[in-house]
């Protein structure tokens, strides 16, 4: 268990969770075929990649704020 002051300071970690919202909700940025990855259009591999990035960010915040 972390003590009271550490867990209060660590609330800032939650700001990391804003990043996925910017990443996947700004649609004009990724609504394109190019750059392709192994023949997979950007629109698709970009959003699949964010599944992983978002999970990692969530894990970091979970660890840092526990």
């Amino acid at each position, binding site marked *: *268990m972390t003590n009271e002051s550490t867990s209060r300071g660590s609330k800032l970690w*939650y700001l990391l*969770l*804003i990043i*996925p*919202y910017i990443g*996947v*909700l*700004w*649609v*004009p940025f990724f*609504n*394109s*075929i190019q750059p392709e990855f*192994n*023949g*997979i*259009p950007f*629109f*698709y591999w970009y*959003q*699949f990649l*964010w*599944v*992983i990035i*978002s*999970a*990692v*960010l*969530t*894990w970091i*915040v*979970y660890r840092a704020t*526990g």
Partner: protein
Amino acid sequence: MNWTALTVFILLFAIVTVLGFVAARWRQGNLDQLHEWGLAGRRFGTVITWFLLGGDLYTAYTFIAVPALMFGAGAIGLFALPYTIVVYPFVLMVFPRLWSVAHKRGYITAADFVHGRYDSPVLALLIALTGILATMPYIALQLVGIQVVIGAMGFHGTGIIGDLPLIIAFAILAAYTYTSGLRAPAIIAVVKDALIYITVIAAVIIIPQQLGGFAHIFSSIPEKKLLLPVPPAGSLGAYSAYATLAFGSALTLFLYPHSVTGVLSASSRKVIRRNTALLPAYTFLLGLIALLGYMALVAGVHDMPAYAPYFKQYGPNFAVPALILHSFPAWFAGFAFGAIAIGALVPAAIMSIAAANLFTRNIYRPYVRPNCTDKQESSMAKLISLVVKVGALAFIIFLPLKYAIQLQLLGGVWIIQTLPAIVIGLFSRWLHRWALVLGWLAGMVSGTWMVASLQFKGTVYPLHLSGLTIPGYAALYALVINLVVAAVFTVVFNVLGVSSGKDHTAQDDYEADSDASA
């Protein structure tokens, strides 16, 4: 009739049925208590919660409908991916607090929390009714998943014979949910998810090989389908539709009673927090399943005479079953269909339990029988879980499918109206209880009106703002109206000195963890 597939299917179904009944004895508790029957005694650890929530949130209907949307409409169908990406950061911020306060105060439903927090039976009743209303059509839609795969194996008669397999499947489900409560879907979810993962991994390895690789699949899809259409001048077009559908749906998902039931059945706050980083595995899976819609397009199943009658009956929902029949040997098709059908049973069971908990805790106990014993409360919940399932079954058998789909769309617009009371309530008690009631009313009416103005065909409402059209998810627009009304009337009621009631929760409750993991 596809006998090989049917045999495998029935075998899987039989295994799951046995598990469902045996579940009553797993981590045994006194099932005459509602928190034992309806929350499995709040004992699930990280792994079971992962399976349970995965099986609960990513339903069979999703697995049929998302690829069907990709198959029919293209890129817009992929909004399910950003939706199930951004949901977890939100859940990590909000729902551990709900777990904590519910654990501390013995709450079983979100309406219990609202009652305690705002000292308002009226608001709690509205939250409970909204939950039940939104859940019913959702259960009905799970049946569609079962119906389509049963049809795919050759049962596509009309009348009572055609519906018989569905009735049998649901009767079995109803029986073990009645006896085992939440333990049944929890155990079955483990089997279901194993089957689904095997099916999808096999599908995304084998089918692209048959079709010449992923690159070839994508290059065979017309660009019109592959990307969202660029918005015309003066409109944000498909861009705002895609983003608001994803964001609004993410806000909505964990407000559904079956999600809350899944969250509250966890054994500690940490289990929920940890799962927000682990559940995205299902999101990745869902994305792969979405791509099956494109594979079905490229495989050309739509033009194969053998499948024509099915497409006529089930529409694009038949895309994935047809692809499976076309690409796999019969025994594996039976395996995959078993996965989809069992995938429908898990959420259907949890939804009916959640609706039963709400009815019993927040309607029956306070309004019908205030002095009921724990045993009577638990018996009532078991009975209601049956009623809810019979209702859903009747809905699918006697009414056209489009009503269930329309009501489920409306369900999302309705359930999001509980966000101010639940989510904001978890952080602050600033909003006045009567202002929340008025906000809820404004959100429900405006949301329903927006969907009605679209002839109940969709939920993307074209909002006009000084010359700019912003097509967006009606649920989100209605939520904004809800929040504005709630905020304005909070000020009004405070000025008028209307009592805001007594808060039955304490500040510390929201960070509390179970004794075991402290």
